């Protein structure tokens, strides 16, 4: 027993140091070489560029944080060292995935990521429900890998090229029907990974993973699709399937955000939020802004990891409260509108999005609504004085936008050597329709209209239930 404890302690310590070392190494390398990170090839197998290093920095950051957190959190857990090794395995598989140029390596790593993640979901193998959840998730991941395999191999055999870069360069020779099928397969793989509706159930059933594993899942696994889509952006353009991404992503974003409202378990609530955010990320891809999607996956990772790691803070004593009706005075409305528009201009100025009449307008619109929403909440708050009311909104959105813009610019530079990652599309009827849908969603939520539809409540409650074998499936028998 003592020997085992020592061994476990040793394993956890080593992985912890290793991960921090890797993170710091990557970060230093990235900063040192910025903005021109050299490209580096190893035969036709590996390829490292700015984007690779960016993802490496990101994933090692999350793994290192999780490992440090887990050091205390999982103390005494029977499978602590198994957990550490699985996290390490996961980290390496995603790192190798982004540096893969050869398709076989790429596909293997995609599958391995799924295997490691499903193992983490069921890391406590003594627990029946965890075993079920692990099996359940693995089915999704294997299916995702099969789709990805089908899509990629179809292109590979068609172009007779087995590296990613070659396939992409020869894509123009491939018949439209083939690229379409391949594109659809790749999209399916991506949305399974991101738990996009209707493939969302594995994520809602994955809470058998210890909290830090969930944090890693939400910060480093589900958003793998953003990376995948960025790598295959050319295929998506060639197959004309961006609009599908846009629609699926947009619908999921709206549905999941509503579903989130009725969740009573904190982790499921976070999972619904993740699904919505992933929907939004996929939507950004659908608009032709793969760089924005990568920024979103990065920032969302920070956000969601934080919320998972602090998920124990949700206990609280409160009073039943009736929702307050929304009222807005004309002057307040003007201020809200003013700041909203100001925010939109600032955002356009800082990021270059929304300056022309194309799909980027959509992203700018969302920023404007966010700013308006923030302003609205602040100006109607009675505990704040006039000074606070006038300076808080600009302070908040300027600091938010400036940090966002800096990261956005940085990521865009790092991705500049990748083909077709920033290609704004011309505005189509779909974008406009979704723009209207988002606005409608905004008002429905704001006004609380949804509360009048009990059937909708029941419907959303049903679709967000975890897989049934992962809840109360087993019962222990007393001696």
């Amino acid at each position, binding site marked *: 027993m003592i020997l085992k404890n020592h061994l476990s302690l040793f394993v956890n310590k080593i992985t912890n140091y290793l991960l921090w070392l890797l993170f710091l190494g990557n970060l230093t390398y990235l900063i040192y070489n910025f903005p021109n990170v050299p490209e580096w090839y190893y035969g036709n197998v590996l390829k490292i560029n700015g984007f690779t290093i960016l993802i490496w920095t990101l994933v090692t950051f999350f793994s290192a944080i999780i490992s440090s957190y887990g050091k205390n959190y999982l103390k005494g857990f029977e499978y602590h060292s198994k957990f550490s090794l699985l996290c390490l395995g996961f980290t390496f598989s995603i790192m190798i995935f982004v540096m893969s140029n050869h398709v076989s390596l790429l596909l293997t790593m995609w599958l391995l990521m799924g295997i490691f993640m499903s193992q983490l979901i069921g890391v406590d193998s003594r627990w029946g429900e965890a075993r079920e959840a692990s099996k359940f998730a693995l089915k999704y991941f294997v299916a995702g890998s099969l789709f990805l395999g089908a899509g990629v191999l179809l292109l590979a055999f068609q172009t007779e090229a087995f590296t990613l870069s070659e396939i992409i360069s020869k894509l123009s020779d491939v018949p439209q029907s083939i690229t379409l099928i391949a594109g659809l397969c790749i999209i399916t793989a991506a949305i399974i990974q991101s738990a996009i509706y209707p493939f969302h159930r594995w994520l809602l059933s994955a809470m058998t993973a210890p909290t830090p594993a969930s944090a890693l899942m939400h910060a480093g696994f589900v958003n793998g699709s953003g990376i995948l889509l960025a790598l295959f952006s050319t295929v998506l353009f060639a197959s004309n399937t961006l609009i599908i991404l846009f629609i699926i992503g947009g619908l999921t974003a709206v549905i999941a955000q509503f579903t989130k409202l009725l969740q009573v378990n904190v982790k499921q609530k976070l999972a619904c939020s993740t699904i919505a955010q992933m929907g939004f990320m996929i939507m950004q891809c659908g608009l032709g802004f793969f760089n924005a999607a990568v920024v979103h996956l990065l920032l969302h990772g920070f956000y969601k990891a934080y919320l998972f790691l602090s998920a124990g803070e949700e206990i609280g*004593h409160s009073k039943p409260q009736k929702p307050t009706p929304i009222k807005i005075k004309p002057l307040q409305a003007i201020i809200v509108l003013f700041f909203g528009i100001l925010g939109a201009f600032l955002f356009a100025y800082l990021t270059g999005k929304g300056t022309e009449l194309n799909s980027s307008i959509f992203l700018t619109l969302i920023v404007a609504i966010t700013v308006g929403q923030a302003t609205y909440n602040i100006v109607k708050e009675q505990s704040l004085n006039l000074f606070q009311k006038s300076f808080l909104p600009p302070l908040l959105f300027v600091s938010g936008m400036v940090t*966002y813009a800096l990261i956005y610019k940085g990521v865009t530079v790092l991705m500049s050597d990748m083909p077709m990652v920033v290609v704004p599309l011309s505005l189509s009827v779909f974008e406009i329709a979704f723009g209207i849908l988002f606005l409608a969603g905004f008002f429905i939520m704001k006004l609380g209209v949804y509360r009048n539809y009990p059937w909708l409540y029941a419907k959303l409650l049903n679709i967000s239930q975890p897989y049934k074998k992962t809840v109360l499936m087993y019962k222990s028998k007393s001696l």
Partner: protein
Amino acid sequence: MINPIIQKSIEEASQVVGKTWPLYSFVTSNPLSGYEGMPFKNAVNQARKFLNANVFPETNLFRQAWEKGEIDEKVLLELLKENQLLESPEYYLKQMATYKKSDATNNHHDLDRIMAKWLAAFMDEGLAEWEMPNKSEGFYSAWRKLAVYDTDLPKMTIGEIPKTNTEALNEVLNGYSAADFTKIFTYHLAALPGWTGYINYRSKSNSQWQQEYPITLEDYLAVRLWIAQKIGAEIYPEGNDSLTISSLSSLQYIWLKAWEKSWQKELINVLDNQQISSSTAKKEEQVPDAQLVFCIDTRSELIRRHVESKGHYETFGYAGFFGIAMDYESLKDGLTRKSCPPILNSAYHVSEVPQVSHTEKAQAYKQSNDVSNFKEYFLKRMKNMLPSAFGYVEGAGFFYGMSLIARTLMPGYLYRLNNKNRADYEAVFEPQIRNTCTTEQAHITIPLEEKVAIVKGAFDLMGWEKLAPLVLFIGHGSHSANNPFGSSLDCGACAASPGRHNARMLAKIANIPKVRQALKENHNIEIPNSTIFIGGEHNTTTDAILLFDSEIPDSHKEQLQKLKLDLLKTQQTATQERLGVANNSVSFANKKANNWGETRPEWGLAKNAGFIVGPRELTKNNNLDGRCFLHSYNWETDKSGKALEAIMQGPMVVTQWINNHYYFSTVDNEVFGGGSKITHNITGKFAVVQGNGGDIKMGLPLQSVKQSDEEMYHQPLRLSVIINAPLKRVSEILERNEHLKNLLDNEWIYLMVMDPLDGNKIQHYQQNLNWDSTSQKSNTNNVVEMMTT
């Protein structure tokens, strides 16, 4: 109207349901409180049967105790022999180890799952933005209106579902004989003991949530049985009724007893050695520099030793609510919480008013409090609303990243940073007391007699004879980060709140000149003019002691300064001992208090096993390893025995609750405890479930009672109470208090009396007011026989 037979059967069946307390005020109570009227052995057998629970320590705990020498070989062999078990202890350990708890498929899985889904949706206390529709009509009705959309149920129309819970129960039970009702109800209530326990809690406490959104056990049973019928699940549990007692249980019980007796023997040895030195005449001792009153909590034992060693200080043990049965209204959130033992009704209501000299600061405090509440609301709105949630994540993501690093890598630094102003609130406001029943009118305080009675109570129970210039009432509270079970580490005597406000209140009352005058005139209790009372709080995670001294006269400042320095030294040495580190123990403790990844910030009341009622001289020179509750008591000043009676009715019962809670959470952490924290998922802001959902957890998590998944920390032993008082006095009290006598006769606790009139000889309580001085003679020789009845 509900059928009276059904009503009666539900009541009878609800014995199986304990009380699940909300985690924001986690009271460590006995999960088998419904069975306390029964002998321990029978009660645990019932629980074993209905809840599928282990009710005795698992074999590996016995083995660990055995290997560490915590079980006295002689005691064990004797007990085994009495039961005609003649093999070696090792043989029996091996025999017990052949039994393993196993998993089986839950045969009412669908039914349980559907119920858990609706219960969680209905009982939510504000985690969801969109609450279940029609909640204010009550559970049955709200469920009925949504059941038609439930895809887990066969298609149906709302007309098919009975309109009320009574109709539903009548419909389902039609065809069963009234004699079967209790069995049916027990079976279905015990299927989700966490949830039904919470229904029980809500209906007993009539919380605001219950008033607004009522739910009853009848509702639960009506919904459950109706669904069971609809989906073809089992309504009447098949299977045998008889309680089969395995030879395993009797073997386990013998081992448990041997373990308990071994510990008692050790404790008695310690006390025996002590008596020699304690017989010095205390009358001649000089007045100490300060007297500090701590809670009876087991964690006070260590800090008291360390305080005493730092100077001429005297310490006392008194229930941490300091005799004020009050509710406390917090300025921070405007909520009123119970701040006295749950077994008492709150007679008083304490709230805060600005100190005369600090009205401006008070205004500023309220302002900043409002702003911080707004911040919380603001963030929630930003995260929830469409599409601002997306924009928010992009704008704020970077700052979350920074916080990730800070909270993971420098929790101790952040703790010091945020903790600087922690007494600000108390420095600006002062507590004021009124009766609970008086209407909301502020500034109507309680009559002088009641104030006098509160202070007199403290004097009576602790048996004070002289007073130091500084008398401190030190409540206790705990700091931990990201800990759903945080309140389980706060003061149990204050219904899982920190005890600081009770301490402040008592100090304030005791400082009122009129109160002192009345004490002197009517009760012959003289408080010297030079004595002042101060409230304080012991932080049990960091062992810091914070004093609320903003209104102290200049005359005492110097003395207080010296005391404060000594308390800092106390913190050093106390943390060194408790955490087992030689250097930087305080910063290590600070780190634990604020590390969001820390699942064991401190050990709470783990290891509790004894309750000693008597003067500090009995225990002063010994390290009791934080295993004993200590209540000060002076048998000589308590002529009538009233004080002792109060101690036995109050603190003794509370310690029994705590002890039983720890016992059951340890012997079956999955059923009675909380399971491992690492996979907890908070539901409804008041409870946790494991993983994806299911039943809510009713007790302490694994990390509160075990060192690791396998290694023991808390030793699951029933409480041994030792009272230093004349035997006759104790016997009389037991005679007057049937329920206390029952607790003893039913073996929920042990009682020993150290009789000062009989040379401090220890007498062990046996059944029915019989006492035995030979002590080691046990009454387990009829274990097997008793357990089968």
